[in-house]
């Protein structure tokens, strides 16, 4: 199976191929020709600039990961917002409205239908854009610095939960913990409650019969997503679940995962399968037997505390930005440099967010701003001093009929068409997208 000896170099401007012909002959190619051609292509490629080339879909290993990622991140976001709304003494009725609006938007049927389709994980940028929109689904507003901090906390919390899950399947229990809390937030509002219950059903239907291997693939897909994120969270540092270098503590004590035994036994079998001897060894840890399994039903004791609300009024949310231990070398993903949202992703997002009914922020009396920091000065300081490598590079899409936002979006769409000439395919999709954004 010989790879073709020409390569399409796709630039984001043209979306057309630029053909490089290598040794294009009709003869069958010997392996000896592969090497010089490969190096020829490599040489040529290095002379071409790839300013935001089209991102091909990354075939990550599980196509069932996105709903879990979204629900768990959303759950953490709600915990944090709930805590901040209380800490800032926002009037109870307004706080409740914000929480209800966000939850209602999160569990919008059209939106979830799109989310639950088997698909690759979105890029960090795309997912961050979705959560930006979600956070602004109500009368609450967040500045960029606060939104950055919110997203840092959400992602580090779920990363922690994924890493500490004893079994891959426990990620589902963590998801149910988040779902249980969300249900508690909206227990007095029947229409939203129904949406939440339907989502439980979908989760149970899709995930409870997945094998351990499939859950392990989901876990690995999530770990790819979270790789190299080491933001230190003060609540984690205080509880000693995170080290000062940003890595999480992996305990070698406590109960073993459900369905496994405490290590320490070697059993030898003969060729008929009969056990002939046993040996004990010390396992280097301090383990005890597994506790009972959590429930995978709509109602039930999940047993694990991962995914429950770790914030309270007395345990505020803070992250540490200064002296962030990761150096830029660790963030340098070779040839995976951030690029503007590829056209595909933007369309995916548009379809997704087309399902998000967004409230107009309303008049000044009703709307208010929430700060994730203790003071406005801190927030401003955090915005200025945020290290470049931690920037999410998000396109801020505002839910208003904002001239500036439309212009910004038009500019982005303009980047996807050949400069100076509108290729017909691109412009119609761009128009649809703009219309959808404006109509929201």
């Amino acid at each position, binding site marked *: 199976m010989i790879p073709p000896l020409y390569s399409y170099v796709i630039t984001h401007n043209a979306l057309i191929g630029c053909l490089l012909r290598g040794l294009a002959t009709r003869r069958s190619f010997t392996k000896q020709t592969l090497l010089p051609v490969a190096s020829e292509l490599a040489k040529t490629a290095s002379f071409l600039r790839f300013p935001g080339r089209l991102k091909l879909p990354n075939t990550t*290993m599980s196509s069932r990961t996105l709903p879990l990622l979204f629900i768990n991140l959303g759950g953490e976001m709600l915990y944090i917002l709930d805590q901040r709304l209380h800490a800032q003494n926002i009037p109870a009725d307004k706080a409740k409205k914000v929480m209800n609006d966000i939850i209602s938007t999160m569990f919008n049927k059209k939106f979830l239908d799109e989310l639950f389709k088997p698909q690759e994980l979105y890029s960090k940028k795309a997912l961050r854009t979705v959560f930006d929109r979600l956070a602004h689904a109500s009368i609450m507003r967040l500045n960029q610095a606060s939104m950055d901090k919110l997203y840092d906390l959400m992602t580090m919390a779920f990363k922690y939960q994924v890493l500490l899950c004893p079994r891959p399947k426990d990620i589902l229990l963590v998801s149910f913990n988040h779902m249980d809390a969300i249900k508690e937030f909206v227990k007095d509002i029947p229409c939203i409650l129904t949406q939440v219950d339907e989502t439980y059903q979908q989760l149970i239907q899709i995930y409870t019969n997945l094998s351990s291997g499939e859950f392990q693939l989901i876990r690995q897909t999530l770990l*790819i997503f979270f*790789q190299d994120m080491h933001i230190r969270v003060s609540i984690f540092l205080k509880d000693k679940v995170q080290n000062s270098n940003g890595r999480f503590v992996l305990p*070698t004590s406590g109960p073993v995962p459900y369905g496994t035994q405490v290590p320490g036994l070697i059993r030898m079998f003969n060729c008929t399968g009969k056990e002939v001897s046993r*040996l004990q060894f010390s396992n280097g840890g301090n383990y005890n037997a597994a506790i009972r399994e959590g429930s995978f039903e709509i109602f039930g004791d999940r047993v694990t505390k991962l995914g429950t609300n770790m914030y309270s009024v007395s345990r505020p949310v803070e992250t540490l930005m200064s002296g962030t231990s990761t150096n830029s070398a660790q963030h340098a*993903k070779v040839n995976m440099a951030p690029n503007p949202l590829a056209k595909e992703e933007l369309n995916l997002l548009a379809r997704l967010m087309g399902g998000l009914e967004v409230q107009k922020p309303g008049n000044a009396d009703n709307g208010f701003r929430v700060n994730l920091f203790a003071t406005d000065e801190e927030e401003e300081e955090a915005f200025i001093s945020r290290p470049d490598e931690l920037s999410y590079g998000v396109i801020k899409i505002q839910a208003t009929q904002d001239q500036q936002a439309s212009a910004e979006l038009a500019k982005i769409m303009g980047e996807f068409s050949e400069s100076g000439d509108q290729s017909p395919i691109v412009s119609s999709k761009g128009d649809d997208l703009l219309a959808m954004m404006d109509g929201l």
Partner: protein
Amino acid sequence: MYHKEKSIQIKNSASALYNNLGVLRIAPRSLTYFTVVHANVVNMVSASWDGLNYSHRQLQSKEPNVATSTSLIMQAAFCALPSRDLLVVTSQKGIQIYESDGSTMVYWHALDTPDTPTGDSSGSILVFDVPSKGSNITLSDVLKGHKKSITDIASECSGSQLLSAAEDSLVRVWHLSIKPESLSVEVAHLHNECVTDTQICGAKFCDGDGYAFAVTGYDLSEIIRYSQS
């Protein structure tokens, strides 16, 4: 029993794969090669035994029709064949074979990828004929042995010692022997090493006697080494 040596820093963090550490000793040149996979890249380090020289190189996954592939690498492993050593890199889109120092790609086999988003592996074993030098590697057989993805074939053994490592941060060294009278295998546990707070994703002996081993961990940009005092 084992004490920690100086770690080798690598350019990216290790990905949470299985067997994510390759080690090849080149005795005539007093060098050891290490490979650690990060997403679509293999980080290679050539370390001199005196600890003074480290040189780095990165290899990327390849796929047809794209100059720079983002397809994820599943494994990079050294194959010590009777006549030569090779580095085999498998990714979601194909198999690449390099000379053991990573300097030259000697073979590239692009896999047919299905159109479904899941990209299920077909569970076939591909058998290659490798000449003692040069790039005339040919696919000689396809064995349809399994229904789903094969996750590993060879196991890691150093003489009579076995190394196991897990995501729970523990490395264990075992001793295997065969009782001649019954031909049964005896397993004895020799040692535990806790690599604090590390979700280990690769572990290999660095020599033929089990005197030294190295590990990699998810999210860590170093190769951690241990040797016996």
